C-alpha cells in the first residue's frame, strides 16, 4: 500500500495504540494535519492554545497511563515552544513523542522561513531525536522512537519531519518484530552475586530504610516493594515522584523525604545504618548537603540507569537493572526480620511532627492552603488524580493529600516547571477518562498556561481546577522571608478576577474564602461533567515546613514551632 509520509505517521501512531495527540498546526506540518483529518475517526487531535501546553498534556497523559504521550507542532516557533515540556519530561523520565514539521530538505541550512535546527536545540533535553531525511525511513524511525521513549529509563523522543518527507510517497508496511538497536540495551536482571551482596547488607542491618522513588511505578514494582518492606520490616520513605509507590496509609510508610519532607523520614535517613534506594536518583532536594548525608549508612542502589549509580551518592552495592526484575530475584531469598526498636524510634519523631501540624492550630477567619488541600482530599475520598503546579501548594499537596495508588500524584519534580499543572491535568484526564482529575495550581503558575482554558472548554474535558490564590509567588516569597529579610521584590502579584476569567471561557466556577465553603465547592466541581474552576483565596504569607534550606544538612530542618512555642 502506497502512503504519504503524513499518512505513515498516522498509521504508525495507530499501530502503537495512540488514540489522542495534542498539537498546533502551521505551514511545515500542514500535510500531516491534512492526514489527521482523514484519520480523525480513530485518532483524536486536541487543539491546544500554545505548544508548551501540548507538550505538558502529552506528559500528563504519559504519567497517568505509563503509555507514550504524543504532541505535534510545526517547525521553528512551534517546535521551540515544545522545549520547556521536553526538558520537563526529560528530567522526570516521562515517555513522550514529539513530532515536528521541518522545512523541506533542500531548504535546510538556508535560514528558510521558520527554520530552526530543532534536533540541535532539543539534543540535550531528549532521550533521543531524529531528523527523517527519507520517507522510506519514516515507519522504522517512528517505531524506534516509541521503543526508545517507553523502554529502559523512559524519556522524551523527538522526530523532526521535513515537509517534503511528509508529502513523499512510499510503500507502507509497519516493521514487524522487535526493534534491535546496536547501542541500546537497557539492563534488566542482576547478577547472582549482586543479589546476594544486597541481601547480606539487608541481613546485617539494624536500622534500615527504603528510599522508594519514581522508578517503582515506572517498573510496576509496587507489590515487590511492599513485600520487601513487610517481610524484612523496613520502613519506607518516598520521594516526591515516588508518592503512590506504596499506599501512604501503610504503617511502614514514613512519608516523603527531602527538603520539604517529613522530619521523621529525614531524621531516620541520617540515623539509618542501611539505605536501600530503589528507582530514585538522590536529587539534591532529597539529600541536602552530600557531605553530611546518611554518613552512618551503607547503601544499596538499584536503578535501571547505570550512570545514576555512584553519581551523587556512593553505593556499597550498586545494581543496574529493572526494579521489578531485580526485586523478584531477591524476594525468594529474603529472610523475615523485625526492627521494632528502630520503628518505635521513628514513631516518636512522627508524633512530634503531628504536634506541629498546622491543621492542629486554631486559625479562625483564615483560610490556609493545607486546609484546602486536606479538605479536597477528604471530599474526593483520597481517590483523585491530582496534578500540581510548582511552589508552596505543590509541597503542601505532597504533605496533605496522601496517595494510595500509583500515578495519582503528577507533578514536575526535577525541572520544577511552573505552568505544568493545568495542561498536564488535561492530558491525564484524556489518558484516564474514568478517573477524577484535579489540577491544583498556584495563582502564579496557572497564569503561565491559562490559555489552555480554551482547550479545556472546547474539549469539554472534565478537569477540576483548584487555584490556590495567595496573591504571591509564594515559594519565592518564602525564600525572601527566610533568606532575604522579607524584601518581596517581584513576588506580589496583581491577579485577574479568576472567576470572571472562567466566565469568559464559559467555565463554571466558584470562589472560596472560608473553610466551611470548601466541601460545597468541591462537590459543585465534582457534579459537573466538564471543566470547572475554583479559586481558593488563602492566607497571603504562609510557610511550608519543615524546610531543609538549599545545601544545608538533611537533619538541619527549619520546623514550625509547636502551638504555644511562640512564633
Amino acid at each position, binding site marked *: 500500500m502506497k502512503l504519504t509520509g503524513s499518512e505513515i505517521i498516522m498509521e504508525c501512531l495507530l499501530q502503537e495504540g495512540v488514540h489522542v495527540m495534542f498539537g498546533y498546526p502551521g505551514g511545515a506540518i500542514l500535510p500531516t494535519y491534512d492526514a489527521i483529518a482523514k484519520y480523525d475517526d480513530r485518532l483524536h487531535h486536541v487543539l491546544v492554545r500554545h505548544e508548551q501546553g501540548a507538550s505538558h498534556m502529552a506528559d500528563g497523559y504519559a504519567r497517568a497511563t505509563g503509555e507514550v504521550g504524543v504532541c505535534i507542532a510545526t517547525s521553528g516557533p512551534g517546535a521551540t515552544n515544545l522545549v520547556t515540556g521536553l526538558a520537563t519530561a526529560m528530567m522526570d523520565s516521562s515517555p513522550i513523542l514529539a513530532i515536528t514539521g521541518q522545512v523541506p530538505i533542500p531548504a535546510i541550512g538556508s535560514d528558510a522561513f521558520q527554520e530552526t535546527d530543532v534536533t540541535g536545540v532539543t*539534543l*540535550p533535553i531528549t532521550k533521543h531525536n531524529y531528523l527523517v531525511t527519507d520517507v522510506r*525511513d519514516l515507519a522504522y524511525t517512528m517505531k524506534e522512537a516509541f521503543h526508545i521513549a517507553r523502554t529502559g529509563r523512559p524519556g522524551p523522543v523527538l522526530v523532526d519531519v521535513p515537509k517534503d518527507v511528509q508529502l513523499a510517497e512510499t510503500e507502507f508496511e509497519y516493521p514487524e518484530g522487535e526493534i534491535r538497536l546496536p*547501542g541500546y540495551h537497557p539492563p534488566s536482571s542482576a547478577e547472582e552475586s549482586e543479589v546476594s551482596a544486597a541481601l547480606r547488607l539487608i541481613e546485617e542491618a539494624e536500622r534500615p530504610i527504603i528510599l522508594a522513588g519514581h522508578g517503582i511505578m515506572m517498573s510496576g514494582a509496587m507489590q515487590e516493594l511492599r513485600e520487601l518492606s513487610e517481610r524484612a520490616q523496613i520502613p519506607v520513605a518516598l520521594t516526591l515522584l515516588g508518592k503512590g509507590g506504596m499506599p501512604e496509609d501503610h504503617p511502614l510508610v514514613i512519608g516523603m523525604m527531602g527538603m520539604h519532607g517529613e522530619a521523621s523520614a529525614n531524621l531516620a535517613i541520617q540515623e539509618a545504618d542501611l539505605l536501600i534506594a530503589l528507582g530514585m536518583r538522590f536529587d539534591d532536594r532529597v539529600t541536602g548537603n552530600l557531605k553530611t548525608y546518611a554518613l552512618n549508612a551503607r547503601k544499596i542502589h538499584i536503578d535501571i*540507569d*547505570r550512570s545514576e*549509580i555512584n553519581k551523587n551518592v556512593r553505593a556499597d552495592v550498586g545494581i543496574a537493572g529493572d526494579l521489578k526484575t531485580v526485586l523478584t530475584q531477591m524476594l525468594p531469598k529474603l529472610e523475615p526480620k523485625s526492627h521494632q526498636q528502630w520503628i518505635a524510634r521513628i514513631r516518636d519523631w512522627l508524633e512530634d511532627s503531628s504536634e506541629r501540624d498546622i491543621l492542629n492550630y486554631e486559625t479562625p477567619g483564615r483560610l490556609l492552603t493545607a486546609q484546602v488541600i486536606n479538605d479536597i482530599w477528604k471530599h474526593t475520598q483520597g481517590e483523585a488524580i491530582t496534578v500540581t503546579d510548582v511552589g508552596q501548594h505543590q509541597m503542601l499537596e505532597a504533605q496533605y493529600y496522601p496517595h494510595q495508588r500509583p500515578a495519582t500524584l503528577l507533578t514536575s519534580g526535577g525541572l520544577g516547571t511552573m505552568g505544568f499543572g493545568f495542561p498536564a491535568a488535561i492530558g491525564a484526564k484524556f489518558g484516564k477518562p474514568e478517573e477524577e482529575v484535579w489540577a491544583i495550581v498556584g495563582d502564579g503558575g496557572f497564569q503561565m498556561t491559562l490559555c489552555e482554558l480554551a482547550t479545556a472548554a472546547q474539549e469539554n474535558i472534565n478537569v477540576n481546577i483548584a487555584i490556590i490564590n495567595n496573591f504571591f509567588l509564594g515559594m519565592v516569597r518564602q525564600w525572601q522571608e527566610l533568606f532575604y529579610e522579607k524584601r518581596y521584590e517581584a513576588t506580589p502579584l496583581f491577579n485577574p478576577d479568576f472567576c470572571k476569567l472562567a466566565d469568559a471561557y464559559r467555565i463554571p466556577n466558584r470562589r472560596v474564602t472560608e473553610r466551611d465553603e470548601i466541601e460545597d465547592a468541591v462537590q459543585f466541581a465534582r457534579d459537573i461533567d466538564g471543566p470547572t474552576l475554583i479559586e481558593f483565596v488563602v492566607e497571603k504569607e504562609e510557610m511550608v515546613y519543615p524546610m531543609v534550606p538549599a545545601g544545608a544538612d538533611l537533619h538541619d530542618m527549619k520546623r514550625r514551632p509547636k502551638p504555644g512555642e511562640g512564633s
Partner: protein
Amino acid sequence: MTSQVDINKVTVVALVENEPGVLNRIASLFRRRAFNIDSLTVGRTHKPHISRMTIRVVAGPEYARKIATNLQKLVNVIDVRVLDNEPHVERDLALIKVRNDDAESRNTITEICDRYPARIVDVGPKVAIIEMVGTEEILEEFIDEVRPTGIVEMIRTGVVSMGRGTRIHDTNFTRRDLAKIQDELSAGGNGNVI
C-alpha cells in the same frame, strides 16, 4: 622545559554508529556533564557503518567510568570500554614544521629524527615538516627536543588506542537503514552492509 605527561590519563574507547550528528551528540554530552576531555579522536573502522573514538581524560578510572556509563546511554553509541588496566597499544601522530634555514639546524633535526620513529616528509630551503608517530609520552619528549630549533607550526591527531592480544573490541550488527539497503538491492548489490 620538560614535558609533563600526566600519569593519571585514562583512555576510553567507544564504537559508535557512523551517522550524521553522532559526534555532536557526544560533544553535547561532554559539555552538559562538564566532563573534561584531554583529547578525542574519531576514525573509521573496517566496517563502513561503525566509527571508533578514543577519548583521553586526565582523571582517575572512576571518572572515566562515569564518562563511559554516560556515553553508553547514547543510542548511537554501540559499545564503550575503559582501558585503564588492559595492556594496549597507543599512537599519536604529529606533523611538525621546523626552521631549517642553516646547516646547524638541519644537522640537529636529522640527528634527532634518527633517534626517534620520525621522518622528514617535506624539505624546503627555509622549513621542513617532520612526521612523528609514537606514544603520547615519546611525542612529548621528541617535541621538547625539537623545540629549541624553532617549531613554526604543529598539529597532533590525538591518541588512538587498541587493546593488545586477542581482546577484540568489535561488534556485530546489521544496520537497519532500510533506504540504504533498498538502494543497494535495487542497484544490484548484494545487500551486505555490515
